[in-house]
C-alpha cells in the first residue's frame, strides 16, 4: 500500500473493542480448501471477517545474501479471521488456516498460545484430513473434529468417521452447518468443553 495516499479503512465505530479489553485468546480452524472454514469463521464473528497475510521465504535461501534478495521469492498466504468479544476484559479471535502441508509454515506463530483447534472436514473427502490430524497430534495441539454438512453429504455415523480418521475415543466429533451462527458457535463450545475436561483431569 502507499502510506502517503488515501488512508486505509479502519474498523467501523461499532466494531471498536472496549478500551478495557486487556487480553486476547485464539482458536484455529484448520481444513482443506472448500471445506467451509471461511463460512464458519464468518458465522461466529461479530465483525465482518478480515484477512491477514503472511509471507513465506524459501528455507535456507539467501541467508548470506544482501537484504532484499530472499523476499523476492516470497509467497504470500492469506488467512481469514473473526472476533468474538467474550467480556469487558477478554476477546477471542478465530483464525481459519489451510490444512495442506505446504501451508504448515504458518502454524508456528499461529498455534503458539492458541487454546486449541477445530479440524473442519468434509465427509465426502475425509482422506484430505489425515495429514493435518497427524500434524496436530505431533504438535500436541488439542482439537475437536467438526463435519460440515453439505446438501449431498452422506449420512455417516460418528463412529464410522472416527474409525475412518483413526481418532482416539476421547476426541469429540460434532456435525455442524457452518452457515449458521448457532451451529458454528456450538463447534467452538465443543472445543472449549473438551479443553475444560482435559484441563480438569488429574495429572498423572
Amino acid at each position: 500500500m502507499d502510506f502517503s495516499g488515501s488512508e486505509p479503512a479502519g474498523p467501523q465505530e461499532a466494531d471498536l473493542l472496549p478500551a478495557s479489553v486487556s487480553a486476547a485468546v485464539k482458536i484455529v480452524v484448520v481444513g482443506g480448501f472448500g471445506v467451509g472454514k471461511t463460512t464458519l469463521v464468518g458465522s461466529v464473528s461479530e465483525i465482518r471477517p478480515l484477512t491477514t497475510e503472511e509471507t513465506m521465504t524459501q528455507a535456507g535461501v539467501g541467508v548470506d545474501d544482501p537484504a532484499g534478495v530472499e523476499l523476492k521469492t516470497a509467497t504470500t498466504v492469506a488467512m481469514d479471521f473473526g472476533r468474538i468479544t467474550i467480556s469487558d476484559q477478554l476477546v477471542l479471535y478465530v483464525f481459519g488456516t489451510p490444512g495442506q502441508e505446504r501451508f504448515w509454515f504458518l502454524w508456528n506463530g499461529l498455534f503458539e498460545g492458541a487454546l486449541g483447534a477445530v479440524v473442519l472436514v468434509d465427509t465426502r473427502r475425509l482422506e484430505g484430513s489425515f495429514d493435518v490430524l497427524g500434524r496436530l497430534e505431533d504438535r500436541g495441539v488439542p482439537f475437536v473434529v467438526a463435519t460440515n454438512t453439505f446438501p449431498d453429504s452422506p449420512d455417516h455415523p460418528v463412529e464410522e468417521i472416527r474409525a475412518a480418521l483413526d481418532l482416539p475415543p476421547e476426541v469429540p466429533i460434532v456435525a455442524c452447518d457452518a452457515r449458521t451462527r448457532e451451529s458454528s458457535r456450538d463447534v467452538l463450545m465443543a472445543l472449549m468443553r473438551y479443553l475444560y475436561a482435559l484441563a480438569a483431569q488429574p495429572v498423572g
Partner: protein
Amino acid sequence: MTADQRADDDDPDRFYVVGSGRSPQDSPTGFDLVTLVVARTEPRPAMPPEQVVILRLCGSPLSVAELSAYLRLPAGLVSVLLADLLDDHLIEVRAPVPVAALPDLSLLEAVINGLQRL
C-alpha cells in the same frame, strides 16, 4: 531499488521500503497475531506515514492481525513496525493470555460463558 521507485502492490520489495530493509525473520519481535495494541499518543505530523496510520487505527485496542488486515501488510512486517513504536513508547501492548500445555480452567469458563451469550 531506489527510494523513489514505486513498487506494485504485490511486489515484496515494498516491504523493504516500509520496514527500512529489515525482514521479520531478521528480528523476532515477540508480537503475536492476537497481541493487542493501543496508541499512547496522537500522531504527530513529523512521524513517518506508516506510524501515523497505525496510531490512528489504534485509538481503541486492535490486534496485530486486525492491523495487518486494515494495512494490507503481512503480520510479520506489521510486528516490525510496531516494535519501533513500542521502543519509542508511542504504543502500549497487551500480550495474549499465556497458554501453557493446557489453558487455565477459569479462562475456559470465561470463554464458554461468553460463547453462550452469542
